[in-house]
């Protein structure tokens, strides 16, 4: 019976993982550079997203806990609902209307998390369930990504309140780099495409800075050992490998690995979304496969699928594989015999 615990001893030699609630808070803290950079480039709409989504998160979690007759304060204290809000808020187009965020958070907190039993029991990443639902249901709003603009854009409040006429929405929207490249058309070569200056001024630059800010947050999480390296490294590795192969095979139609890395949600996804431990594969070996799978799916969906970005779908698809990965990635326990090569295994017999 262990009397000592890493979080309560003050004289331990090695650093240890902070308690679960603090883990969540650390992840939130690490999103700050990314959110700040995004707001700098895309306006205060980013902040309003995050605040609204976080508020919805807490309110919905409390409401469902009340219905489930579970202690509210203890569960809210772990900050996991707050984190889901922050992550979904950060993925939505800036200044999304409040009802859109609300619908997304209902899907995330009520359906994807609490209906499955709350923290620790959800098979799918809640924020990505919310995001995927919104992307499928409200494509107009979800692709409404305004070009870089000043901190307080015109019509911000009307947008958030959802009172802006739909006709006016289009005038605000601009394409994301991934979107633009995807729809450049078969006949257009990549070099020609970039020569036309297809994006509003500074768009590519803004996306790169945002991506780097996410990377900075991710590095903090890695350094603090809040997340393990297994998922982000294998995800980015497989993404880079596949995009490099594609790019080398036909540079005029496949974007460069760097383009894939620094635009869209690649780095955000690698460090903040795919690393959600609850819905990820649990063993270290499983995490390697899980991460690599996400990276590969991102490339495949971006290149051949119908959506310009793919992190949400890739993560959800790999969430789906987790039970299988967990079954087949069990490490060999010390003292257990090595499976002789060629021994037939009964299906489902492992481990």
């Amino acid at each position, binding site marked *: 019976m*262990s009397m000592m615990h890493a979080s309560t001893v003050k004289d*331990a030699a090695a650093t240890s993982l902070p308690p*679960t609630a603090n*883990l969540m808070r650390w992840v939130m803290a690490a999103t700050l550079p990314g959110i700040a950079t995004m707001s700098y480039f895309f306006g205060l709409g980013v902040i309003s997203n995050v605040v609204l989504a976080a508020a919805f998160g807490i309110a919905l979690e409390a409401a469902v806990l009340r219905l489930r007759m579970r202690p509210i304060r*203890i569960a809210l204290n772990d900050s996991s609902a707050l984190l889901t809000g922050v992550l979904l808020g950060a993925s939505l187009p800036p200044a999304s209307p409040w009802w859109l965020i609300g619908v997304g958070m209902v899907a995330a907190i009520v359906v994807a998390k609490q209906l499955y039993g709350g923290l620790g029991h959800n098979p799918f990443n809640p924020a990505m369930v919310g995001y995927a639902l919104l992307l499928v249901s409200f494509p107009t709003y979800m692709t409404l990504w305004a070009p870089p603009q000043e901190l307080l854009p015109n019509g911000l409040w009307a947008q958030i309140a959802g009172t802006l006429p739909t006709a006016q929405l289009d005038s605000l929207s601009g394409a994301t780099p991934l979107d633009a490249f995807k729809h450049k058309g078969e006949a257009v070569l990549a070099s020609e495409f970039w020569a036309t200056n297809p994006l509003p001024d500074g768009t590519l630059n803004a996306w790169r800075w945002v991506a780097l800010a996410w990377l900075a947050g991710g590095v903090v999480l890695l350094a603090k050992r809040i997340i393990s390296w297994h998922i982000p490294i294998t995800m980015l590795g497989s993404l880079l490998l596949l995009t490099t192969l594609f790019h080398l095979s036909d540079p005029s139609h496949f974007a460069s690995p760097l383009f894939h890395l620094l635009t869209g949600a690649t780095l955000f996804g690698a460090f903040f979304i795919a690393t959600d431990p609850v819905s990820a594969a*649990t063993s270290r070996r499983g995490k390697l496969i899980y991460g690599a799978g996400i990276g590969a799916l991102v490339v495949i969906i971006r290149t051949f699928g119908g959506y310009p970005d793919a992190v949400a779908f890739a993560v959800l698809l790999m969430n789906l594989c987790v039970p299988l990965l967990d079954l087949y990635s069990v490490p060999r326990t*010390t003292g*257990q015999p090595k499976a002789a090569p060629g021994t037939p295994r009964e299906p489902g017999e492992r481990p």
Partner: protein
Amino acid sequence: MASAFDFPGGIYPPERKQRSNQSALIEAPLPSRVTLPLQQHSGQPARPCVSAGDAVNVGSVIAKREGMISSALHASISGTVSEVSATQITIQGDGQDTWQRLPSLDWRVADTAAVLERLNESGIVGLGGAGFPTHIKARVVEQHAIHTLVINAAECEPYITVDDLTLRHSANEVLEGAQIIAKLCGVQQIVIGIEDNKPEAITALQHALPDSQPVPVELSVISTRYPSGGERQLIKKLLDINVPSGELPADVGVLCHNPGTLLAILHAVRDGQPLVSRIVTLTGESINQPGNRWVRLGTSVRELLEQAGLNIAELHQVIQGGPMMGTPLPTLDTPVTKLTNCLIAATREEFPPAPAESPCIRCGECESVCPVALLPQQLHWYARAQEDTKLERYHLFDCIECGACSYVCPSHIPLVVDYREAKSRIRLQRIEAAKAEHAKHRFEHRQARLAREEAEKQARRQARQAQQRRPANIAAPSSEKVDLRGLRIAHAAAKASVKKAEKTLARVAQEDPKQSLDDLEMQLATAQENLKAAELQLAQAREQHSSEESP
């Protein structure tokens, strides 16, 4: 040889050994009264052989070994036996400390049986914590060839400094004790595994090494990491041998002993002194004279801690053993036994109560510290859901309960507590299943016996009838068609099942002499009964058959 081979995982908890390893090893004051539990070892409790009012000396046998795995018990002070209960013997001391020793034995020339018998009658058990009787452990050579004796001086748990102080003070004697075991078990090398946080003990060992004869001794200093003192972990680290799951180190030719045990062995053999005292670490923030003491077995914990300056106002709990694997004592009025290696009188601040448990988020931190490469997060899930087949598939029984997973869990889940509960639940089920199986076999045996008796009766009756018939010389009316072929087959099958039962019994008895064999013996007896019945029936049928044909 550097410790190049590693076990997976491990943690670095605060060591807090400074508190007890600064002062020299001293004798605790002679207690005026001792309470000696009859069970101070693994196996069966000892059987008392004294009664209230008997005068005893230090070293007098007061309880004898009972059954195969058990150990004798000796008076630890001289005086009068004041009470013999079902679980313990109490001795009131006379303050004289009169000893009764056995004759000295020269282990270099004495024969193996004599040394083994000395270990047996001296009540030596493993002093590291498990308390396995040493003479039984030494007899493993009857089944396995042992090549290496490992001296487990890693002492990886925080707080405990027993082995450290034992080696600082008696390195020579510990090594001589090791040589006794080495000779007894015919080992070819002795390896000492010690963590690098005990420099003084290491120096003492280095000085003592040249004198250790005749088996070569190797000192292997390993880096400090919990749980390197786990038997299997240490064997892996020192020798790069994995002890297979479900087997013992002896199965791979290794024997592990703790320095304290080796010292006790030497005292028993060289000085004829049975196990009546041991070294105990007294530590924790609630006592102001921490350190290691030679303590007579049966001394009250309260008395011992009070002599070490117990501050009862600050005391929150007393832990027996280390903070990772030890247990809190429910009461201080409990005796020091052969298994008490450390007593931590802790304040509340020293071991703050664990914060409330939150849900497992499958972060996998437990997996990365598990020294046997289990998936504690999955075991947790299945243990809570009581999915026993899954638990066994994920090798719950390979868990050494070191507590590394509980130590790091960010959700403060008491994982080891869950695993222990699950283990005992599964063990109970196994015992129940075995009992049911045994009852079934007993029933089958009874049926077989009745069948055999019936067949005998039949045979007798037939013989009688044949005798009566012969004078009349009338052909016996063949009442029913005799199925000779069927009976022959049944006889052959019965013969085969007897052979099979015999073989199984022999194999199991050889593999694991400790295991209870009644069930297998019962199955063999059943098979034999069946065979007898089949033989009788066959003989009878043959006779009937021939009598039908001959006339």
